[in-house]
């Protein structure tokens, strides 16, 4: 994992890490201490992913050309 992203990972990175954890737990070759730590991390990741999925509102913004020709982001007025 890249150090810059340690606080909040992307959904994809979280899910990939979770898949790796599930796999190593399934193989059963890790020690109990490691397994417990992996389990805790896995549960945390699963929770994070589930919460992200629950986000109810789609965010839509617009790139619009300003007076100086530069583009900037603005809200989209809803229909």
């Amino acid at each position, binding site marked *: 994992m890249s150090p810059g992203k340690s606080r909040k990972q*992307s959904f994809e990175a979280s899910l990939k890490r979770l898949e790796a*954890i599930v796999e190593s*737990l399934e193989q059963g070759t890790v020690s109990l201490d490691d*397994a417990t730590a992996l389990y805790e991390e896995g549960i945390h990741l*699963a929770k994070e992913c589930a919460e992200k999925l629950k986000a*109810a509102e*789609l965010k839509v913004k*617009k*790139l*619009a050309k300003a007076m100086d020709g530069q583009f900037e982001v603005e809200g989209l007025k809803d229909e």
Partner: protein
Amino acid sequence: MISKNPMEQLSLIAEEKKALTVSEITRQIKLSLEQRFSRVWVQGEISNFKQHTSGHLYFTLKDEGAQISAVMWRSRAEGLLFLPESGMKVIARGSITVYPPRGNYQLDVEQLTPVGVGELQLAFEKLKRNLAEEGLFDESHKKPIPEYPETIGIITSETGAALQDIRSVLSRRFPAVEVLLLPVRVQGVGAAEEIVDAIAEMNRFRKIDVIILGRGGGSLEDLWPFNEEIVARAIYGSRIPIISAVGHEIDFSISDFVADLRAPTPSAAAELVVRDRAELLELLRNYCYTMHGSLEEKLSTLRDRVEGLLSSYSFNRPRDLLRESAQRVDEFERSLTSKFSHLVQLLHHSHLTLEHRLEALNPKNVLRRGYALVRKEGDLVTSARGLEQGDDAMIQFHDGTVKTKVQP
């Protein structure tokens, strides 16, 4: 000056205002016209078409009320995808230039697009062939579409049906994405140029994972911007992967061929770009069960080993040490169970809000009505014959589990 005769008036004007030379007025006209009309689109019918031996094309564009001379220099004419001829309806893009020695103005044509369907079809086939030969459609150049994009760029009309379709699909399937719209005209003159600019702008704007470029259905002429060579080259040059979604399922555009992925419709593009959240929640639930099961299995193996050692004679003395180990295993199990049930609750909640029907199948509901599960050594006991006097059994209610011994 009302009372003076015309001759007097004229001489007065000549004295008061310096008269312009022909060259000077022409220079001013040239400046004014060429600045004002430096980039115009003109629709009309070709007449008096002549191809000079030098390769330059000379013709007149006309409609019912007017006409304008036009020239297309050889270097530009060589890029034409069809052969112009008198009588053909076209849209010419170019600029107005004034030729002082003859005191006339003309349209200097940069690009010529046929308007009739037959000509458009020919131009389409020719461009498709040229670009295919050049390698713009090669699979090896296509960029993979990210599996879980966080920011999706959309290049389409702000008022079109395509945007609404994409929004509603994304809201339903995976609303945890951010959508960045860059509104463009998707038909008519200048649309292709706007699309090209939009692709460039999105590539400058760093944080976009994938672009959906498209519009709803329309006639071949309406869809034409997506068949323009400049659009094809912009898609090819994009650093960000592009999904092309133009018109209906049966419509194929040059954009579709050159894009990294073709979607039959804008809605389908939205379906392709994100996964379904109900499916993902199900996947997460399965992962949790797998992790829980694996860890429980590990714990129970360790427990068996500890218990085996406890009951063996040789290890009966240093009992404290063993008890400590046993306690540690118990603690692990307790914390595991509480974390797991918390998560399962969370997942249940989010899943149920999406899939209400699952509620009826939830075994916890059965337990809540007063039923209970009986387990012996972890296995479910489904018959009275499964238990004998003196057996240890676990009874699971909806809110917890109690340990019991079968009485004589």
